[in-house]
C-alpha cells in the first residue's frame, strides 16, 4: 500500500495542470472560484474544449470515447479540474444517460446519441420524479400506451432540472400496471420539442429557476426510442441512479469551499482581531476539515478497489449521505462567517437597479445562494432518509 503518487502519476498531474491552466477560460473559472452563476453556455463552452482534447468522459470505456485512464489518473484529473475552478459538466448527459446508452442501448441508439453527448451538442434532462412519486419512484404513473410502432405518452414529471434548457429527456414511463409496480416501467429517450410537451418553471426558495414541471399530452414517441426491453426500465433506472450517486462526494468542490471560508475568516474582523483566530470558529472549521479528509479517503479507498465490508457496490449510498451532510455543514459555516453580510440577497431581482458593486464582500459571493439551494442535496438523488433505509437493508441486512 502506498499513498503517494508514482513518478508517472506526478508527470500526468503536471500535464493536466498545465493544460487546464492554458485552456480553461478565465471568465468561467472566475465565476466558479468567486461563487458566481455558471450558465449553460459557459458549461457548453468548457465541455467542448474538453471534448476537443479527448478528456470529456474519463469515466467511460475507451471504445465509447473514454480516456483509458487508471482510477488514480481519473482522480488526479478531477482534482486538477476543481482546483483550477472548472465547473462540473452536465451529469445528466455524461454520468447518467450516456452510460445507460452504451450499456443497454442498441447499436443505432449508441450511434445516434453518444456523439452528441460527447461533443456537448445535445443537452439532456432527467424525467424520473412525478408529483405522486418521489421517494416511491417505482409508483410512477406517466403512461405510455402502445400504438403501432409508437407509444402515446400522457402524464407529468416534476422537479425536472434544466428541462427548459434541454434538447432531450430520458424518461421513465409506465407501460404495464397489471403486476408489481417495478415490473411495468420502460425507459424512453425523446426530444423535448415534440408536440404535446409543455415545460412550466418552478422557482426555488433562492429565487432561481432550475427545476420544472413537464406535462405530456398525447406525445408520440417511436418504440425505437426505448432503451432495452419493454417493462425492464426499472433495471436501467437503478443502474443510472447508482451512477448518479457516484462522484457525489465532490471532494474537490468541498476543498474549494473550505478554502473560501478560510479566506473569508482570515479577512473578517472580530473582537478586534480576526475571526480566523476565534476558538469557536477554529473548532468548527477543523471539524469540517477532518470530515472532508474522511470523505476523501473513503472515496480513494473505494476508487482503488477496496469495497465496503458488508455489501460491495453500494458505497454510493453511504457516500451520498456523508457528502451531502458535509456540504450543508460547509454552507452553514460559510454564511455564519459572512455575518451580517451573509444576509443581503438578491436572488429574485436587483433592487438597486444600478451598476454599483455588490455590498456583499467578494469572498462571500454566492454563499447564501449555495446555502439555500444546497438544502435540496439531502432531498434529491434519493433522500438521505431513503439512503439510510437502503444502507440498513442492503448493507447491514437488517
Amino acid at each position, binding site marked *: 500500500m502506498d499513498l503517494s503518487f508514482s513518478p508517472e502519476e506526478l508527470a500526468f498531474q503536471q500535464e493536466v495542470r498545465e493544460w487546464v491552466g492554458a485552456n480553461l477560460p478565465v471568465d468561467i473559472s472566475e465565476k466558479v472560484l468567486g461563487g458566481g452563476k455558471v450558465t449553460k453556455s459557459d458549461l457548453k463552452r468548457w465541455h467542448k474544449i474538453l471534448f476537443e482534447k479527448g478528456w470529456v468522459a474519463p469515466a467511460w470505456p475507451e471504445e465509447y470515447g473514454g480516456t483509458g485512464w487508471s482510477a488514480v489518473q481519473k482522480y488526479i484529473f478531477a482534482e486538477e479540474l476543481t482546483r483550477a475552478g472548472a465547473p462540473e459538466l452536465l451529469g445528466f448527459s455524461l454520468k447518467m444517460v450516456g452510460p445507460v446508452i452504451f450499456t443497454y442501448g442498441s447499436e443505432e441508439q449508441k450511434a445516434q446519441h453518444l456523439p452528441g453527448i460527447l461533443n456537448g451538442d445535445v443537452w439532456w434532462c432527467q424525467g424520473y420524479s412525478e408529483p405522486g412519486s418521489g421517494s416511491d419512484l417505482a409508483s410512477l404513473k406517466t403512461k405510455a400506451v402502445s400504438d403501432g410502432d409508437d407509444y402515446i405518452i400522457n402524464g407529468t414529471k416534476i422537479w425536472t432540472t434544466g428541462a427548459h434548457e434541454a434538447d432531450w429527456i430520458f424518461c421513465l414511463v409506465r407501460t404495464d400496471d397489471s403486476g408489481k409496480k417495478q415490473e411495468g416501467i420502460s425507459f424512453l429517450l425523446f426530444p423535448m420539442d415534440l408536440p404535446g410537451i409543455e415545460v412550466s418553471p418552478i422557482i*426555488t*426558495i433562492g429565487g432561481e429557476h432550475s427545476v420544472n414541471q413537464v406535462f405530456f399530452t398525447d406525445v408520440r414517441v417511436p418504440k425505437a426510442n426505448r432503451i432495452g426491453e419493454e417493462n425492464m426500465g426499472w433495471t436501467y433506472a437503478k443502474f443510472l441512479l447508482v451512477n448518479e450517486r457516484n462522484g457525489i462526494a465532490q471532494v474537490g468542490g468541498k476543498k474549494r469551499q473550505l478554502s473560501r471560508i478560510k479566506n473569508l475568516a482570515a479577512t473578517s474582523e472580530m473582537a478586534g482581531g480576526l475571526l480566523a483566530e476565534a476558538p469557536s470558529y477554529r473548532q468548527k472549521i477543523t471539524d469540517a476539515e477532518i470530515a472532508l479528509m474522511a470523505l476523501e479517503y473513503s472515496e480513494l479507498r473505494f476508487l482503488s478497489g477496496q469495497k465496503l465490508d458488508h455489501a460491495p457496490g453500494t458505497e454510493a449510498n453511504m457516500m451520498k449521505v456523508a457528502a451531502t451532510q458535509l456540504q450543508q455543514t460547509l454552507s452553514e459555516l460559510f454564511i455564519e462567517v459572512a455575518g451580517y453580510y451573509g444576509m443581503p440577497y438578491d436572488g429574485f431581482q436587483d433592487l438597486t437597479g444600478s451598476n454599483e458593486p455588490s455590498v456583499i464582500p467578494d469572498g462571500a459571493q454566492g454563499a447564501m445562494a449555495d446555502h439555500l439551494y444546497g*438544502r435540496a442535496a439531502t432531498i434529491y438523488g434519493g433522500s438521505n432518509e431513503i439512503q439510510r433505509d437502503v444502507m440498513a437493508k442492503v448493507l447491514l441486512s437488517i
Partner: protein
Amino acid sequence: MDLSFSEEQQLLRDSAERFVDQNCGTEYLRGLRDTEDGFSRDHWKTMAELGWLALPFAEDNGGLDGTPVDTLVLMEAFGRGLVVEPYLPTVILGGGVLQAAGSAAQIESMVEPIIEGNLLLAVGYAEPQARFDLFDVATTAAKDGDGYVLNGHKAVVIHGATADKIIISARTSGNRRDKDGISLFIVDSDASGLDKRPYPTVDGSRAAEIMLDNVKVGADALIGTEGQGLAPLEKAVDHAIAALCAEAVGAMKVLLDTTVEYTKTREQFGQPISRFQVLRHRMADMMMEYEQAKSMALVAALKVDSDDAEERRKAISGAKVQIGKSGKFVGQQAVQLHGGMGMTDELSVGHYFKRLTMIDVLFGNVDHHLKQFSAAA
C-alpha cells in the same frame, strides 16, 4: 409565580393573529417583492389604529405602557405571518433608545408621530468591521460649533432606506473598541452627506448601507449624555432580541404545524409519510425544539428589564442561543420533510426557513451569544 397570560394579553393575541391570518403570510410577502419600500404602508396605518405602535411606550408619553410580555404576544403573531413592517426598528429599537435616553423634547417630538404611524425609524448600530459588537464603533462625531459632524459607514441597517430618521451610534471620544465615548444621534434621512444604499435581505425584508460624509447635526440631535450611548443602545437591542425571539417562536410554530399536516396527507409507499418512524421522531424533536425556544423567549421577555445585569444578560443571550439553534433545526427539517415541495418559492415553508436564518444572525448569532452568556456567568 404565575406564567399565564392575562385576559388583555389573550385579546391582543386574538386580534394580532386575526390580523396576520387575514393580511399577511407568504402571498403578501411575495406581493411586496417588487415594491420599493418592501413593506405595506397600509398595514402600518392599521397597526397604528390598532394601537400596536403605542404598545411599549409609557403612558406619560402617549403609549399603552405595555410590558415586554405584551410585546412577545404581538411579535409571536408577527412571526406567524412573516410580517415585515418596520416594527422592530421603529417601535422596539428606535422607540427603545428614545425611552431609555431621550430628552423630554425628543420624546415629545417623536413618540407621538411614531404612535400615529407617521414617523419611521431605523437604527444604525452595526459597522462592517464590528461583526456583532455594538461598542466597536469607527464612525466619528466631531464637535462642530454647537453641533456635531458625522463620518462613517453603518452596515446592514434594517429598513434603513425607508426610515424618516436614523439613530446613529458614533464615537465622540476614545478608541474604536472603547465602551465609553459612544454617542447616539438622530439624523434626518435626507440630511446632506447621508447616502443610502438599499437592498433586499434573504428573508424578503430590506436593509441598507448608510454612508455618512460630513453630515452636520445640531446639539439637539444628541440622545442622552455624550459618550454614554452604549448603555441605552444595549438596552434597546436587548428588548429587540427579546422581541425577535418571540417572532422566531411564532415562525417555528407555523413550520411545525405545517410539517405535521403535510406528512399526514403526503403518501409514499402506499401510506402517509407521517407513519415512518424516522419522520415521527424528527417531528417530535422539532416540537421539543419549538417548546424550549418558547420557554426561553418567555424568560427573555420576563427578564429583559431586570436590574441585575448578569440575570438580564443570561436571559437575553441564552434565549438568542436557543432560538438560533432551534430555529435552524426546525427550519431545516421542515424543508427536508416536505421533500421537493419544501424547496419551492410557492410553499410557505421556505419563507419561514429564510426568516429564521435571518433571525439567527440579527443582533449576533449563536456563537456570539454563547460568549456573552459565558462572560456574564
